[in-house]
């Protein structure tokens, strides 16, 4: 540890100044825009107007609902997958884990585009449905909440699996067999042993998936379009179609508040652990 504080600050400040000027200041001005009253001064009219419009309320609730649904489903699949991965032999475990992580490195546009191929009018699902004679005309599967849900789940599931695998690795090896020998059913083992011991991993994974789903743009844009708007796509529309910067600023504030609170929660857990 060096004592020369001035030297240390000289090294750290360029990054901090850059981040402040390019980030905090412009974003701060943007957020303040919704609080500016039409006659000058401060007001929360922007927020009242925003939430009095039914479409905005629908989009807000839909975003929350999809975020929670994606996080919840990811937790269920994540527990099953992580439990299997942790019990694999060391070599296969590395390979399978690698395959779970891989998709994170690939462009979300590419990852989302695959769902157009799967769910589109001439995609696999529709070919199968018309081929089997279940329906004469192709079904509309794209631009539905289900499509957005599937796209988001595929995008963020790896984050949940990674968090749960590292949480489960810390469960002492004999604990689960011990519970079984003492007569616990698998359901009891899950709720009384695995869940309490992996709570942190679940919260970390859940927050990552939830904030990821809230702030994803590409997936709702490609798979939801203007039929299934989420907060991010609504923000884009408000700016590019209706030039409505007050609404944009309100949406920005909602998104930031939600992702900040999620991050605070994460930090609290991280400090509680250490």
């Amino acid at each position, binding site marked *: 540890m060096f004592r020369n504080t001035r030297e240390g600050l000289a090294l750290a400040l360029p990054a901090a100044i850059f981040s402040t000027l390019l980030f905090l200041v412009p*974003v701060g001005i943007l957020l303040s825009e919704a609080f500016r009253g039409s006659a000058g001064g401060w007001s929360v009219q922007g927020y009242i107007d925003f939430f009095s419009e039914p479409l905005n309320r629908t989009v807000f609730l839909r975003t929350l609902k999809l975020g929670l649904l994606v996080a919840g489903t990811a937790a269920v699949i994540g527990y099953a997958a992580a439990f299997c991965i942790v019990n694999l032999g060391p070599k296969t475990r590395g390979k399978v884990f690698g395959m779970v*992580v891989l998709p994170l490195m*690939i*462009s979300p546009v*590419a990852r989302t585009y695959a769902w157009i*191929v*799967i769910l589109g009018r001439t995609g696999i699902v529709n070919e199968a449905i018309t081929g089997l004679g279940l329906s004469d005309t192709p079904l509309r599967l794209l631009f539905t909440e289900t499509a957005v849900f599937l796209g988001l789940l595929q995008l963020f599931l790896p984050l949940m699996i990674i968090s749960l695998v590292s949480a489960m690795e810390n469960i002492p090896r004999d604990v689960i067999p011990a519970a079984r020998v003492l007569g616990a059913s698998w359901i009891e083992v899950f709720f009384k042993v695995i869940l309490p011991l992996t709570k942190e991993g679940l919260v970390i994974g859940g927050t990552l998936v939830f904030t990821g789903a809230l*702030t994803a743009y590409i997936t709702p844009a490609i798979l939801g379009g203007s039929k299934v708007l989420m907060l991010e796509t609504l923000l884009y529309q408000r700016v590019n179609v209706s030039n409505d910067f007050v609404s944009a600023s309100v949406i920005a504030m909602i998104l*930031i508040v939600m992702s900040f609170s999620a991050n605070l929660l994460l930090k609290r857990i991280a400090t509680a652990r250490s």
Partner: protein
Amino acid sequence: MRHLATWAILGLTLTFLIGPFLIIILAGASDTEYLAFPPQGLTLGWYFKVFTVESFRASFVLSMALAVFGTLAALLLGVPAAYALNRYDLPGAETLRTVVAAPIIVPGIIVGLALLRYMVVPTGVTVTAALFMAHTALVLPYAVRVVSSSMNNLRADMEEAAVLLGCTRLQAFLKVVLPNIRGGVLAAFILGFVTSFNQVPVSLFLSGPGVRTLPIDMLAYMEITFDPSVAALSALLAFMSLAIVFAAERLLGFSRYV
């Protein structure tokens, strides 16, 4: 029986995660004029066509340049910051850390809009310059975090020894610290490159005539055309990312750092 269940669960999960890429690869090879799966006949035509689309070429070059130079700039800012936060007892270190990490918490779309409204419009900075700065800011948190964690493993007394033996502080950094954190810096570069290259929301509002990053260009293209070329391009990009990550893993055990 347990084995069967294990592999059934893992098989389904991996199919859900990886299957779509196999589908994209095949869909890009379809010989139909529209997107179709399963393809009726196979051709590599779309894979070649991608390279002849003028806008894709221009936006690929822009995305590459942003990813390379934005990440380098982030490292130039981030490595000294990581070093200072690790080695000095700074007043307000926690605040500094938060400020530098802020870009990761704020959703990208908001950053892009804020920069457009309050930097590009009032100061007349070009969109390209704004894109460059936005991508640098976006990668900065990763650079600081990854480099910090590899510096944590390096004992400070090695540098102190070098200084006692007559090195200047700069020489000690260049000859002792830098060679030891090389892996971390490279890992930060790769992570930053991939993040920047794949980034959409930040660049969404920061585009102008002839200035579009590749993912934005792909989004625009798929709104007007339904041919398999976007599938082909997606597959090519996926291969590119995989190649980079595999090479990194082979060369320096990338996953240790991320």
